[in-house]
């Protein structure tokens, strides 16, 4: 992945991109700036964790779907076993996804996790257990999304290959059959 956004096209979903970044940036900004304005840790905690949870929900349910066409969730099947499901759009739609959208999606996803890790290290150094709690919660949410979507992307690639090779094999066998019947 490169540092610069791919040029030559605009964002296909500017509103979704905006929301995708809004809650992440909001949680980080509130965490940084709150120490200047608020004395009470409770407000900092609740607002930051709430923004982080909202961001998690938005990324998982909205921007993941629309910006990169991926989705993941967990189900419990009839045997009581927990199954993680990953789904993606078919390869035609995937190929038509806006490159800028997906660049923004993946970059901000990884970047926020890195920033939260930095904050965690800071609060660890300063022995502030409460702030470590906040950072811990936000980090867990970010990492959960990263893991889910990365797994989803690997699955998407695998399925594209499977589908393509399967279709080619089918077409070949039908061509061969028709060739032999003609002959």
């Amino acid at each position, binding site marked *: 992945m490169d540092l610069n956004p791919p040029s030559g096209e605009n964002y296909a979903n500017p509103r979704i991109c905006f929301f995708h970044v809004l809650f992440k940036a909001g949680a980080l900004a509130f965490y940084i700036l709150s120490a200047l304005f608020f004395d*009470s*840790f*409770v407000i900092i*905690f609740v607002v930051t*964790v*709430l923004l982080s*949870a909202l961001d*998690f*929900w938005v990324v*998982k*349910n*909205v921007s993941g*779907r*629309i910006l*990169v*066409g991926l*989705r*993941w*969730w*967990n*189900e*419990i099947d009839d045997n*009581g076993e*927990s*199954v993680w*499901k*990953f*789904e*993606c*759009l*078919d*390869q*035609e*739609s*995937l*190929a*038509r*996804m*806006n490159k800028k*959208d*997906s660049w923004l999606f993946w970059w901000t996803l990884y970047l926020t996790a890195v920033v939260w890790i930095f904050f965690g290290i800071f609060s660890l150094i300063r022995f502030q*257990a*409460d702030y470590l*709690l906040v950072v811990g919660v936000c980090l867990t949410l970010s990492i*959960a999304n990263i893991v889910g979507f990365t797994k989803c*992307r690997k699955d*998407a*690639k695998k*399925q*594209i*290959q499977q*589908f*393509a*090779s399967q279709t*080619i094999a089918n*077409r*070949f066998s039908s*061509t*061969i059959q028709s*060739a032999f019947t003609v002959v």
Partner: protein
Amino acid sequence: MSHEDNNTVPLPLPQTSQSDIENLITASVQLAPSTVKPACPPSPTTRASIPVSTSPSFPSNPPPSLSKSSTYVPAAPLLHSNDPNANAGRSQPNINTLSEPVRETVKRDMLRIVSNLKLVVFPNPFREDPGKALRDWDLWGPFFFIVFLGLTLSWSASIDKSQVFAVAFALLATGAVILTLNVLLLGGRIIFFQSLSLLGYCLFPLDVGALICMLKDNVVMKMVVVCVTLAWSSWAAYPFISTAVNPRRKALAIYPVLLMYVSVAFLIVAID
């Protein structure tokens, strides 16, 4: 997500040339039905309700098995889900969740929280089969309940409000995790997130109790209210935990849960 590593099969067929193979490849790609571009905001022309049996969940995540979602019937993109056993009937809901509007997702998640709450906390026919009841676990409900309890306790406290909140949140969150590990280590058959979700939902009665205690300051009334809500919480949690473990180890699994709820009840009563 590109096609650069598509494997082409180089078979030397006497009757097909290289260009024919390329034609086959492009034909196979075009076999996928033409889809609506997901970037376009979908405009509902026809709406049909299809009962969704699964729904995406928050690792916290909430899924209900009883909610419905609207679908856009004709132009839904084709989906592949990572389940080789998925039959044609199951693929229907998947198509809808990837192309549904945001409002539907929100509505679905809210309905899920409400239905989970009703299943866990209030009397209902599913209590004999707890495994089925919380199949669609979600962590949004527990998150709200824990935060609400922390806020209520913190509001009632006259000093050290931040500390009270932090302690309450940390106690409840780590307590839920540890209790789940306890059940799992006792050889119980329960799923981690399902149990976390359950323990969070069972906090609802204590939330109500804490709210009442915050509004009225009578000591006797507080004791009565807290006892009632504690009994309600324990009654709600009991079937799920007890059926998950070996009957001989039931007490070992139930006792820590009751202990945690009792300590929360003490917190509520003792706060002033």
